[in-house]
């Protein structure tokens, strides 16, 4: 009788110690983005959103303490991969998240998933990772690259536009953007030009563009490249002559820097600060209050990324070794996304709506993006059938 009691007590103590040991181990998340150089502003939007998400979660992820390791990839694939290696081996992170650039993602994602760690992308959506290279440990809270330009291609097709001149930076996402655009736009493409990633001066390309005399221009120039392109396009006097349609170019990052050179432009996107749902109202409102500027989709996706990780850790009750359980939970997309309710496709890429946005100047004076209409409802990417993954 007595020995039984002692064993019970010992077992209880052991159980307590286990619980304590588990409580002591925080969730470690490695977040890689571009924090320095011209793309550093995008990284700032993402980092601030991660911090806001943690505030909203009470500084806990899935009920556990959380430790975030930020890494600056400097927009370089090799640096991104080194950071991922360091986070996996030195910091022993449980999740790697972030990544703005598709070329960086293509270097980082296989490294992370190959090490048996879950990767939650919060921007880049290269087609390889949605198709043949899809992986059960790889999720994205953003989109597949082709989806957004597909929506713009659809809209421009519906408008009956033709003689399009298309331009994008020469890297993985640039190619995806143009091929996505052409999947739905069936009019004539009179020119297709790829420029260097991070290029500053577009005057030579703009001169060629004017000589080609297109009826409409479609571009993809994210971050600093968009600021330069929009300015130089306006300075060349083309803004009044040839309408410009874009994806990821006119946004809350470029608008303050270019002013009226982006007024009245159209973009397509899955999210906008004025998208009506409770989660978004809370995100946008608190973001403006805490940081004093308007968030972008880069931020919304990163906020969602942390909530997705939170939902996974919560579902396995903090047992971070239960990868299968976390993957199963993440597939449900069971969290309050800033884009509203969405579902994951078999390749772990969102099935979601895409909207047409326009930059307008309301009476308050500051130019902002406003949703005009829905272009696609529950839009799937074009590559999921190539993904061999079965749920």
């Amino acid at each position: 009788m007595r020995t039984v009691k002692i064993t019970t007590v010992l077992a209880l103590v052991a159980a307590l110690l286990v619980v304590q040991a588990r409580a002591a181990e925080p969730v470690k998340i490695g977040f890689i983005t571009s924090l320095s150089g011209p793309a550093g502003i995008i990284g700032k939007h993402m980092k601030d959103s991660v911090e806001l998400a943690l505030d909203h979660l009470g500084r806990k992820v899935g009920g556990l303490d959380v430790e975030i390791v930020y890494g600056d990839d400097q927009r370089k694939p090799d640096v991104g991969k080194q950071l991922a290696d360091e986070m996996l081996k030195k910091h022993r992170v449980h999740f790697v998240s972030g990544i703005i650039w598709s070329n960086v993602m293509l270097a980082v994602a296989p490294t992370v998933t190959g090490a048996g760690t879950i990767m939650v992308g919060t921007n880049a959506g290269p087609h390889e990772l949605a198709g043949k290279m899809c992986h059960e440990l790889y999720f994205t809270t953003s989109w597949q690259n082709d989806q957004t330009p597909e929506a713009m291609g659809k809209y421009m097709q519906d408008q009956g536009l033709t003689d399009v001149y298309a331009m994008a930076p020469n890297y993985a996402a640039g190619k995806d953007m143009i091929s996505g655009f052409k999947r739905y736009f069936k009019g004539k493409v009179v020119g297709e030009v790829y420029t260097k990633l991070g290029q500053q001066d577009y005057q030579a390309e703009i001169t060629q563009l004017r000589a080609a005399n297109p009826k409409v221009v479609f571009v993809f120039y994210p971050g600093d490249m968009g600021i330069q392109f929009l300015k130089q396009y306006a300075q060349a006097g083309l803004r009044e002559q040839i309408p410009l349609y874009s994806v990821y170019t006119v946004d809350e990052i470029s608008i303050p820097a270019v002013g009226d050179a982006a007024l009245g432009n159209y973009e397509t996107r899955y999210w906008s600060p004025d998208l009506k749902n409770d989660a978004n109202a809370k995100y946008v409102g608190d973001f403006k209050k805490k940081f004093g500027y308007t968030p972008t989709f880069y931020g919304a996706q990163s906020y969602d990324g942390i909530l997705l990780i939170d939902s996974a850790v919560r579902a396995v009750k903090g047992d971070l070794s239960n990868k299968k359980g976390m993957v199963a939970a993440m597939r449900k997309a069971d969290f309050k996304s800033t884009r509203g309710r969405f579902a994951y496709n078999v390749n772990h890429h969102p099935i979601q709506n895409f909207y047409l946005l326009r930059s307008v100047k309301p009476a308050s004076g500051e130019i902002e993006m406003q949703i005009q209409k829905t272009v696609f409802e529950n839009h799937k990417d074009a590559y999921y059938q190539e993904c061999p993954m079965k749920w």
Partner: protein
Amino acid sequence: MSWLLVVEQLLNGLQLGVMLFLVAAGLTLVFGIMNLVNLAHGSLYMVGAYFAVAFRAWTGSFAAAVVLALLATLVVGMLVEVIALRTLYERDHLDQVLATFGLILFFNEAVAIVWGRAALFASVPPALGGFVELVPGLRYPVYRAVIILVGLAVALLLYVVVSHTRLGMLIRAGASNRTMVAALGVNIRALYTVVFGFGAALAGLGGLMAGPIYTVQPGMGEELLIEVLVVIVIGGIGSIRGALVGAIVVGMVDTLGRAYLKPTLATVISPTAADSAGPALASMLVYILMAAVLYFRPQGLFPAVRGR
């Protein structure tokens, strides 16, 4: 009409070239005279752009902003020389590279702290907006035309100063034999500070003119710096004439490569292959040129004459 297009592209090349020259001139001067590799030169270009935006917001006038920004960059340049770089002259180039790389990080963070990480709004002054019709059918943005003129004027001014003034004589003497110049009673330290300050002001001039067409943001100097280093290697390290020729060659090769390489390739190889090879090759072109210059003429096209 296609020759008009070529002329316009040549102007674009020239404009990029003079922009590179403004930054390259200061960098090569500093290297030629002080034997100092200053990677932070791109940061002074950035500082010039930031000052111009700040002073323009403050005074409301572009002209006043230009003058104030030039003076301010000159002062910053001199301060950097006195505080940080003086101790580096006797060290080897690797130490200088490390220290000035540190300065790049310092300046990027400093402007991010003062003005924030977001890009600043900088527009072309209204008086310089619009177009000039150079010949019928060729409209060129006034602002870019002004950049070309200013750049060429600075090149001329530098030539006059370096070749025909007492300061220029000291600069040339300092470049060929600094010990002798010092022995002759010239205050070489003060000369260094002045030269560095003017080099900084030239970079600042490049930056303040670049602001309205590029992006005023932390890190804007590094992208330019890489091309400027190519310019200096091609032109010959330490030579102002080399910097001018190198800058215009790089500007032309880069611009014309971006405009014509793909269509030219398409006549030789299949258009699809040209589509993927063209842009990649165009962005490599200046580096290929640099490699060729290094192979055939390692000292550059116009090497500075140096004594022992």
